[in-house]
C-alpha cells in the first residue's frame, strides 16, 4: 500500500549524470565514532602476554591469545598498520604460552 503512496514519477532518464561522477575519497571524518575495541584489546593482550612471560602465569598467556583473537576479529581491515599490530600481538601471545609451558610443563 505504501509503495504507491509515493507516486512521484521517476523520470529516471535525465536524472543520471555520468559526466559528474565524483570519486569516493575516504575522508577521515567519515568514521565519526572511532571503534576502539580492537586497539584496547590489543594493548590488553600485550599486557597479558608480558604477565604470562615474566610471571609465568599460564592463565595470562591463554587470555593474551584470546585478546589478540578478539582484536583480530574487530580490526578494521582497511588500515595496513592495524593488521601488522594484530599479527605482532598474536605472535607475542603465542610465544608467551609456549614459554610458560617450556619452563613449567605441569598443567595449570
Amino acid at each position, binding site marked *: 500500500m*505504501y*509503495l504507491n*503512496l*509515493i507516486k*512521484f514519477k*521517476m523520470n*529516471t532518464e*535525465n*536524472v*543520471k*549524470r*555520468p*559526466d*559528474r*561522477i*565524483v*570519486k*569516493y575519497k575516504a575522508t577521515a*571524518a*567519515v*568514521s*565519526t*565514532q572511532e*571503534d576502539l*575495541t580492537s586497539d584496547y584489546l590489543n594493548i590488553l593482550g600485550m599486557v597479558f602476554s608480558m604477565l604470562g612471560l615474566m610471571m609465568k602465569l599460564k592463565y595470562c598467556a*591463554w587470555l593474551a*591469545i*584470546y585478546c589478540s*583473537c*578478539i582484536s583480530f*576479529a*574487530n*580490526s*578494521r*581491515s*582497511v588500515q595496513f598498520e592495524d593488521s601488522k599490530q594484530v599479527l605482532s600481538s598474536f605472535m607475542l601471545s603465542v*610465544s608467551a604460552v609456549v*614459554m610458560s609451558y*617450556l*619452563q613449567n*610443563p*605441569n*598443567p*595449570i
Partner: protein
Amino acid sequence: TLILLLLATTAFTFEDDEFADFEDFEVETENEVNEIPQKKIAEGEKPIIKEQATTTDSDTDSFNNDDDEGIVEDEFDQDEFEGFAGEIEDDRNEGKKKGAEPKLKIVNKVPYSKVLWYNYYIEMLFLGGLVLYFTNYAVGKNKNISIANAWLQTHKQFLEENFALVGDEANANNDPAYFMKDSDSIYSLWCSGRTLVEGMLVELKLIKRQDLLSITLGLLKKVSDQVQIKVELSKDSMDTFVFAVCSKSAARVLKDMTDLKQYCINVAKADEKYSLPSGFCVLSEISESTAAMLDSKVSSILSKYSQNIESIHISDQYSGLNNMQEQDQTLAKPETKKMLILTYNFSEKTDLNDLKTIMQLVIYLVEKLKRYKLSREGKMKADKNRQRVEEEYLKNTHQSRMEAAALKKEEKRKQEKEKMMNEENVDKQIKLEKKMKRKDAKKAMPKMKSMNIHL
C-alpha cells in the same frame, strides 16, 4: 624468528639450571624421604638392638664387656647425634656421595609428578574455546556478507536507475565489487553521478556477529543492524537551513553534531505538532523549513517505519561531530558541506523490500530540497544565524590568535635582550640598552598624547 630462537635457547639453558636445582631438591627429598623411614626403621631396630645389646650386655657382661660397649658406643654415638642435623648431614653427604653416580637413575624414574595428556583439561578447555571462537568468526562473517548482499540485491535496481556509478569500478576480475569492506561488520557503498547530488555513501553497520565478545555484550544492550545513508548535496541544490528529526535513542548522538548545536533549538512537543510518531524530537533552526520538510508524505512514512528510522538530519553547515580540540589547533574554520543523512535500523526479520521505501524517501527528500526555497524572512534569519556563528568563531579563535601573536612578540624581545646581554664591548651594550629604553618609552608615549586630544 631469531629473537624467538634466542629466547628458546636462553629458556633451555635457564631450564637446565632450573632442573639442576630441581634435581638436588629431588635428591634431598628422596634422601630425606628414604631418610625418615630409615630413621624410623633405624629407631625401630635400634631399640631392639639396644634391648638385644642390653640383653647381650647382661649375658655377655661377664665375658667381653669391651666389645659390647664398643658396639654400644658406636650406636650410642649415633643415638647421641640422633637429633642433630649433622647426623642427617653425614647421611645426606653419604647419600649424595653414594647417590652421585645413580642420581640420574633416580631422576629418570620420577622426573616430576605423573603427568598424562588428560591432566591438561584446563588447556583443552582453552583450546576448545579458541576453536569455538574461530568457527563463530567464520559463521558470523559469512552471515554479515550474506545480509549485505541481500540488502544490495533489493536496492541494486533502484540505485542503478538513479546513479551512474554504483559502488567501486569493476576490480581486477571485473565483476563489479560493490561494497567496500571497512571491517568485518561495516560495509560501505559509494554511488555518484546524479543531478543535485555529489555522491551518496551508504554505510551498513551490522552487528559484529563475527566476534563472540560483542555478541555476548550485545545481549545486554539493544544492538541492531544499522544503515546510514549520507547524501552529499551539490552547492545549489539546497537552501540554507539546518534541521533534524530523530527518535529518542538517537537524540544523544545528534546533540553532539556541531551544526545542530550551533544553529538548532529543540522544538517542544514536536511529535504532536508535526503528527510524528511519539518519542520523536525535532531540532530545527527555522520553523517554516521544518513545517515544509515534515509534510504529510514524510510524516506518514516516519510513522510507518517508526521502529526502523532513527534520524533524518538535513543541514547545509554539516561538519561532523564537534571535535573541539582539533578546531583549536587548526584555527581554520572547519569546512562545511550540504548533507542529508538518514539513519535507520533493521533486523534480520524485517523484509528488505519494504526498506526500499526508505531509500525512495531519501531520493524524494533530495528532490524536495531542490524545489524548496526559504521565504524572505526565513532567509534573513538563516543569514543572521550564520553571521552570528561566524563572529562567535572568530571571537574564540581571535583570543588564541592574540595569544599566538603575543607569544611571538615575547620571543622577539627575549632574543633582543639576550643579544644585548652577551655583547662583549661595554659601549655597544650601553647603546643597545639606550635604544631599547627609547623604544619602550616611545611605545608608552603615544597613548597619553591621544588622550589629550580627546580632552
